[in-house]
């Protein structure tokens, strides 16, 4: 193994990190406002992928263009799930909330299995082979677009949270739910919007990886633990924490894959995750 390989691994790790960041930001927003751990997050990503797939099959829509449909679609699904399923159990014991989101995950996975079968599907784009040279590393265009797209959407979300009234209300509800009520924020509405946005983030991330990843009903499982790792690493509820968490997990994963044979390298981020949980459960960047 030489330095070039390591550098390339780090570069690709950062590229994955951009997508992980978007997934993590969505999960984090849901956690922040609702205080629930959403096991269905990976399934939302899967729905985003299928949405992109069918749009490209039936209407020949470019995967990246399909974002303008997948984002509102997933937002809508998120709102429905929040309104009818999550909302009734807010305030219940944590175990019940975990199991309910697991139920949502099982439902979404199996409706996908029922409707579209277990086959692995892929979306081909004409520019799949394009590479961008950066110093002496060759970066795959699709991975680069996913990275830029992920960070760009996260940035838009950040500006939304900082500048708009709804965004400010979301942050207020996330920090102090009772206080938000007291100053007259409609917390129920904010919870709906936040869950919708969180879901849309996962869906958008799904769309962004579709051109270079396979699609299957259970593909979400692969990203579920990753999403949790990103969020815990950066600190539950911290926006920038999730972004950095995404990069760290991405790089760890990709270095692990280069250094260790087979898929044993995946143990690297998991071990880091357990260590962080034990010693800094509030995240690396929180005191």
């Amino acid at each position, binding site marked *: 193994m030489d330095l070039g390989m390591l550098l390339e691994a780090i570069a690709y790790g950062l590229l994955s990190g951009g997508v992980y960041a978007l997934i993590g930001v969505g999960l984090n927003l849901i956690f922040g406002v609702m205080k629930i751990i959403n096991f269905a997050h990976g399934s939302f990503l899967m729905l985003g992928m299928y949405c992109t797939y069918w749009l490209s099959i039936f209407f020949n829509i470019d995967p990246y263009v399909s974002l303008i449909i997948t984002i509102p679609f997933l937002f809508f699904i998120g709102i429905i799930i929040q309104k009818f399923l999550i909302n009734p*159990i807010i305030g219940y014991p944590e175990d019940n909330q975990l199991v309910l989101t697991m139920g949502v995950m099982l439902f979404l996975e199996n409706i996908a299995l*029922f409707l579209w079968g277990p086959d692995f599907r892929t979306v081909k784009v004409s520019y799949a082979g394009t590479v961008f040279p950066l110093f002496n590393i060759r970066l795959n265009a699709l991975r680069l677009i996913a990275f830029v797209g992920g960070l760009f959407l996260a940035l838009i979300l950040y500006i939304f949270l900082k500048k708009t009234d709804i965004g400010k209300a979301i942050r207020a509800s996330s920090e102090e739910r009772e206080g938000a009520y007291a100053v007259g924020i409609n917390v129920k509405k904010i919870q709906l919007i936040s869950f919708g946005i969180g879901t849309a983030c996962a869906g958008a991330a799904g769309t962004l990886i579709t051109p270079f990843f396979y699609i299957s009903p259970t593909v979400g499982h692969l990203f579920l633990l990753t999403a949790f790792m990103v969020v815990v690493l950066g600190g539950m509820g911290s926006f920038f924490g999730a972004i950095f968490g995404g990069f760290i997990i991405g790089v760890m994963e990709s270095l692990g894959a280069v250094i260790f044979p087979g898929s044993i390298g995946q143990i690297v981020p998991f071990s880091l*995750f357990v260590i962080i949980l034990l010693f800094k459960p509030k995240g690396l960047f929180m005191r």
Partner: protein
Amino acid sequence: MPEINMFRRVKLFIIYIVIIFCIFLGLPQLLSSYFLHVLILILYFSFLGSAWNILGGYAGQFSFGHSAFFGVGAYTSSLLYIKIGISPWIGMFIGGILAAILGGFIGYLTFRYKLRGAFFALSTFAFSEMLRIIALNWEFTGKAVGILIPLIQGGSLQHFQFLNKITYYYTILFMLLTIWLVQYSFDHFKFGYYLKAIREEEEAAGSLGINILKYKTIALIISGFFTALGGTFYAQYMFYIDPDITFGTNVTIEMIVRTMLGGAGTVFGPLIGSTIIELASEVMRSLLGEYKGLHMMFYAIILILVMIFFPNGMMGLLRGKKKEEQKGI
């Protein structure tokens, strides 16, 4: 509570167990081989659910990584059997002991650093994923191909292989009875009260002088031990294991779902949850045919509805308990 009342409850409970056990003892005589298979699955999942229940229900520590123990049990007995010919009956207990050690390690580590709720769930999830990846990459465990248990002509009691399903049925029934008695003892001995106290109010339990770390870890050890026995039973019933089947999230989800559906922290909860799910999915299958995913969708819907309307599971409904008080806004 008056002493006499307690005594009557104990007696009643024993009577329940004996009645249910007798029903199950007699059932195979009435059933065809297909229903016997369904019944075995019900008992098998009740057993696994009960094993999860010891930690998740009684001690209130929500594990999302019990497949780790399941896999350790399945792999230990199978590897000992195919590599050096040790009978799976013995391998079962060696696997159980290894899983108990793993449980002690995970428990000591996570509980020592006071991981709770979702954080505990996620750390157990990470441990089970690590074991899955090891099994997937290790030549010794057969990598992704998994392990095929070689069949013996005519079956063999010594090798835990039977031609007739009835023997499997009695095996899992006996295993389930054992775990029931263990849980029953929780309801009537100090250890169980400690666990309940920890579940209800950990700080208060600690300030009363209960060694929280010790009792939570013991609960995880017992729970892991039994889960591993279930793993061996699976391997010997299906004759095939691979990393995704044993260490994957599906086993864990099955254990949690059935227990929560029936009622966590109750002896018969897992049995009720398991019966509902197994019967419902068989009925769905016969009514709607073999559509992939359909009966699981149905299963997810039941789960969601029960979580929303009966947070204490079906046992809570039977006992007429009100919903847990709703905190927050």
